[in-house]
């Protein structure tokens, strides 16, 4: 670690001690309180110059490298601040895509508003396009100066609270399915847009379904050329660069005290079996932190291999399942009595049944465990790809 990074760490830590919200989870018992907590914390980070370290240097606090961002996220995890659930997609996914593909005019129109709190969501997944994203069917037809869009989007994080949406649509059905995709910027207040929250099994509503019914999007709100949507979407999907999993792994390590408390409350401090399970989990979390850390170090050094990101994600998702499962097991019958959840409280809130159900978020979202295993096997280990043709049982041969 260089002196400059140590200085940065020291500054961030001091700033967080003075500015990070305290006891914020206790307040987040409603959506409204959650939104307020998120907005206030984001505004504070903007003010402190820590909201957009990855943006170009002309922006407040921008011009920082990945190594500096890593320090910032480690410190945010350490301070157990609210995770930036509402604004993350705006500052990372939307901004990074706009910086890479947006015209000067588009950048000037959209980027400053992100710092003022404008919220973006992502409209990629659909009922028929989950793991197979290129199967997007939401249709956009060019009519003069507008695209007329019809279709349905799913799993738009914070979509019901968002102002704008990164929208992947189909403009052509000719050729390979990736080639017919186009990338649009949708104003969610436009006529014909309906956002409906998705009720998750643990009781939160962090995602929305978007229904698009003859929605008109001006052609000037297209990113890249028509038919270039797949390439633009890759920029969006690769924008966060490993920081989230680094932060989440560190938060999981920081949350071990919740399990420790549970063990003490149940008087099982001398139960060798419980201690082993707890010790094994602690080592696995240490390993998850180590691989997330190594991944970023390799990325900074330009040594990342295709598939490395999948190793990190699969390690995290499986370890989180173990963490929450152990809490559920140790908590016993008490975990089965319904307790109100903490909105936006993170992956480890101590509401064990809710945390356990919420942990599926990481084994399914952002490329399911099974998709990660395919990537690892085929792209990192060079095993053969899935055959393109198949026969279903009962089909004529």
């Amino acid at each position: 670690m260089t002196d400059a990074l140590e200085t940065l760490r020291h500054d961030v830590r001091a700033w967080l001690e003075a500015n990070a919200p305290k006891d914020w989870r206790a307040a987040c018992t409603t959506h409204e309180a959650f939104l307020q907590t998120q907005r206030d914390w984001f505004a504070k980070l903007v003010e402190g110059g820590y909201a957009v370290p990855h943006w170009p240097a002309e922006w407040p606090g921008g011009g920082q490298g990945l190594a500096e961002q890593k320090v910032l996220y480690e410190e945010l995890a350490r301070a157990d601040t609210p995770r930036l659930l509402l604004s993350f997609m705006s500052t990372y996914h939307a901004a990074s895509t706009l910086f890479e593909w947006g015209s000067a005019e588009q950048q000037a129109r959209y980027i400053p508003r992100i710092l003022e709190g404008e919220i973006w969501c992502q409209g990629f997944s659909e009922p028929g396009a989950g793991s197979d994203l290129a199967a997007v069917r939401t249709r956009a037809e060019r009519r003069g100066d507008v695209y007329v869009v019809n279709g349905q989007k799913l799993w738009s994080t914070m979509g019901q609270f968002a102002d704008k949406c990164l929208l992947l649509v189909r403009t052509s059905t000719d050729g390979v399915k990736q080639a017919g995709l186009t990338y649009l910027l949708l104003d969610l207040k436009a006529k014909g847009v309906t956002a409906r929250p998705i009720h998750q099994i643990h009781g939160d509503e962090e995602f929305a379904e978007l229904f698009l019914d003859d929605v008109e999007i001006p052609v000037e709100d297209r990113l890249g050329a028509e038919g270039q949507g797949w390439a633009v979407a890759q920029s969006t999907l690769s924008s966060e660069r490993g920081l989230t999993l680094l932060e989440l792994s560190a938060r999981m390590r920081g949350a071990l005290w919740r399990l420790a408390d549970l063990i003490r409350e149940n008087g099982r401090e001398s139960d060798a079996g419980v201690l082993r399970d707890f010790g094994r989990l602690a080592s696995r979390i240490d390993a998850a932190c180590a691989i997330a850390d190594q991944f970023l170090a390799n990325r900074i050094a330009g040594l990342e291999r295709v598939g490395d990101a999948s190793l990190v994600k699969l390690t995290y998702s499986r370890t989180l399942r173990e963490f929450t499962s152990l809490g559920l097991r140790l908590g016993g019958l008490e975990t089965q009595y319904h307790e109100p959840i903490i909105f936006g409280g993170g992956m480890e809130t101590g509401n064990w049944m809710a945390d356990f159900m919420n942990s599926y978020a990481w084994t399914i979202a952002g490329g399911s465990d099974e998709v990660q295993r395919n990537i690892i096997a085929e792209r990192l280990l060079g095993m053969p790809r899935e055959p393109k043709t198949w026969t279903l049982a009962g089909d004529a041969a």
Partner: protein
Amino acid sequence: MSTERAELRDAARKAFSAGGLAPAFDASWNTVAEMGALMMAVPEELGGLGLDREASGAIHTELGRTLAPGPAIAQMLVIEALVAADGLAERQDLLDRAMAGEVMTASLARADAWGSLTAVPDADRASHLLIVRAGHISLAPLEGAEITLRETWDKTRRLFEVRPTGDGLVLAQGDAATALAQQLEAQMLFALAGDSLGGADAILELTIEYLGTRRQFDRPLALFQALKHRVADMKTWLSAAEALFWNRAADNTAGLQELGALKAHATSVYRAIAEDAVQLHGGIGLTMEHHCHLFLKRATLNNALGGDADHWEEQAGRRALEKAVA
């Protein structure tokens, strides 16, 4: 990975792989000595190379990868104990001999069981034995000692029970001996973790190769997603364990408890991968002629040496319980 470590790993891999898997003792041990592996942890003023824990990690992973025989782990404990014995007149002479490859050995059982001196590698080839007892560490000549081979399932290692005839040279006593015993135990655990991760990587690589070659139902086994996903899981566990290993290797504050937890984790990963490797090889994996069983046996032995996963996971749990406070 630091450049020096990568260079050292490459050199070690090149040297050790020349003998193939589970090479014969003489050639393998000569290579270990010739490449300076036994000098690495010795300070330069004592004629060594003055390298850190990362360097030793690179050596042990490569020894594990080729299923190398020999007492490298035990001998490095003797060497570390000699380095610590700065009042000993014979120190330089003994160090020189040990660094050159004269076999000196030690028990690889858990520290509190060291009184009985079990699991001593290659005692029949050794001139000296390190004896670690509570508050007392010594180096005894093995001439005339009663040694008994305890044949292990793992044929890449040879373990003995030893009853030494005398105490020999005293290397440390009292608090110094207690501290040194902990340091030696930590070093042994780290070495076993490295050996395990090298072995796990090797058998995983061989398994992937086999799945790509073996054909059934007119296609390579590697095409079946059920098998690919198992391999992907193995690669994931291994990669995370390797990241933890190198993280602890570079962490000077990692002591006995951290390395014990690492050893439990690494040997569990090795065992899981070696177990699944036999299954994925099918019938051939159950035969002596194939190398699969060698990894399985070494993995289970590594698991039992130096205190098993149950012991170290319980310790890790106790420690996490103390540390994890809101």
